[in-house]
């Protein structure tokens, strides 16, 4: 079995702040890392590799700096990693990412199973796996909470809006996984350092059969044209100080708002 795990290299959103003076998003200074949700997809792939002897390849569409995320993924048990980068890397949209992943899957594949996390921590679109599945004409499920390989198909449990479903899915298939699927193994800095860069291939769009021009912001399906701090209309009162005072003020605020029984 050959498994492709799609991972995103993201800024650590807990470290992103607006500069109160310039009103600019401090994105550049934020540390970057592998998208947490994708770590669960990687763990699922590595477990299948341990059980069945599968080959696990990591795919990432992003800036060159994502090489760090690639090495982390290889250290967690993948065989090799492929990063596709280009002048569009900082701004690419979900449809463009999915198109490049499809190109990567076609040129580096074939793959029996393509996995990723349900969402990315930064954009929260939850679009790439589904668009990729459509591009490859493969069956697709998201919210995967259980995964068992079974010959030419996989048995998949998933949760959606109050129901739990079990599907038999024919391979090749694209699945995006819930964080409740598994507990990803921890990778030490030393393990990451030991990963040889020869296991990480860095490619361009043309290497996967596509043209850079398609992914320029002007040509993309969606383009970010503005960014501003999330409105703060709610913040009406800040309570701080001695806990006993704070609690008294808190209760009188709740009474005034008419929300206590």
């Amino acid at each position, binding site marked *: 079995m050959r498994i492709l795990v799609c991972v995103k290299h993201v800024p650590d959103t807990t470290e992103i702040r607006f500069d109160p003076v310039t009103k600019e998003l401090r994105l550049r200074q934020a540390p970057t890392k592998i998208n947490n949700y994708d770590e669960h997809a990687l763990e699922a792939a590595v477990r299948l590799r341990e059980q069945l002897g599968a080959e696990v390849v990591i795919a990432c569409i992003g800036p060159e700096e994502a090489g760090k995320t690639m090495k982390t993924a290889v250290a967690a048990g993948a065989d090799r990693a492929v990063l596709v980068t280009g002048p569009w890397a900082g701004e690419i949209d979900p449809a463009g990412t999915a198109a490049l992943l499809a190109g990567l899957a076609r040129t580096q594949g074939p793959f029996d199973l393509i996995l990723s996390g349900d969402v990315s921590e930064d954009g929260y679109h939850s679009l790439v796996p589904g668009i990729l599945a459509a591009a490859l004409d493969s069956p697709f499920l*998201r919210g995967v909470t259980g995964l068992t390989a079974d010959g030419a198909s996989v048995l998949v449990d998933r949760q959606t809006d109050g129901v739990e479903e079990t599907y038999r*899915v024919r391979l090749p298939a694209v699945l995006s996984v819930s964080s409740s699927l598994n507990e990803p193994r921890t990778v030490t800095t030393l393990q990451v350092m030991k990963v040889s860069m020869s296991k990480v291939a860095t490619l361009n769009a043309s290497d996967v059969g596509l043209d850079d021009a398609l992914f320029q912001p002007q040509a993309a399906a969606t*383009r970010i044209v503005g960014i501003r701090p999330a409105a703060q209309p709610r913040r009406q009162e800040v*309570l701080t*100080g001695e806990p006993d005072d704070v609690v008294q003020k808190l209760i009188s605020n709740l009474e005034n708002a008419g929300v206590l029984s």
Partner: protein
Amino acid sequence: MSRALVVTQPDLDASRLVGLARSIAEEVHAIVVADAAGTAIEEPNTDGTTAIGGPALETAEGVADALAAAAAEQGADIIVLPATHRFREITALLTARLDGACAPETISASRSSEGITADRLAYGGVAIVTVLLQRAHVLLTAAVDIRATASGSEVAVKPCLLPMPAGKELMSRVALDQTGDLSSAERIVSFGRGVRSREDVAMIGRLSEALGADLGCSRPIVEDLRWLELPHQVGLTGTTVKPALYFAVGISGQIQHLVGMRDSKYIVAINNNPNAPIFEASDLAVVGDLYEIVPRLVEALAARTA
């Protein structure tokens, strides 16, 4: 003229989707994805409702095929869908089928000389990004509520005759235990990673009891720590809630959580980090140690009702 297709299902309140569609389209039609044997009702404030049902609509691929056909038939250039788990899957597939420009979880949309733009939260809820949608077909999703009661004239459910998509076979479908379903709760006390150990959940439980509230939590409590079951999880991968009173205790306020609770009427956040993003979504920001505040608050609430 711009024509929008609002997609819904019988148990959802699509009014927010209709409002979003009205803000950018002259004509708004609704399409209800129903059971073949079920019924559907006319969607209010639209220029017409159709309903479809059938076995092919059991899978997301089948629904995406049916919606692509409906969009073509009605000449719709804007498709507005619910941001539920089921429709997130469908939305991605439909975006591919229509080669559309999609903005999921939009707050608002508008028209400019350049085209349609949508505002949505990103980067952990710290920022609102404005996205220009540069394709002939535009897809938007937005949070919806469960419909309390359905009234209106009935619409016949048209059988969808598309073939069953290949590749996926449903083996079983079981309703999850929805006890403690938070979507209709009047008061909710939620907690997050600020609660240091499983034993301390009881302290949060006492606060929720004192307030007559249901217990909720953020994603890591269910998915990473497994202290509570999924029905308690508030957020993008859990339940969307809108109680009269929402307490966020020791929750930093990642976008995952914010999108699930931002429509609550009155929001109180307790956090020891004065810069926690949750405060920006709160009416009352209590900066302090939850271990000092919560027990005192429980006592004071008890004294108040005694």
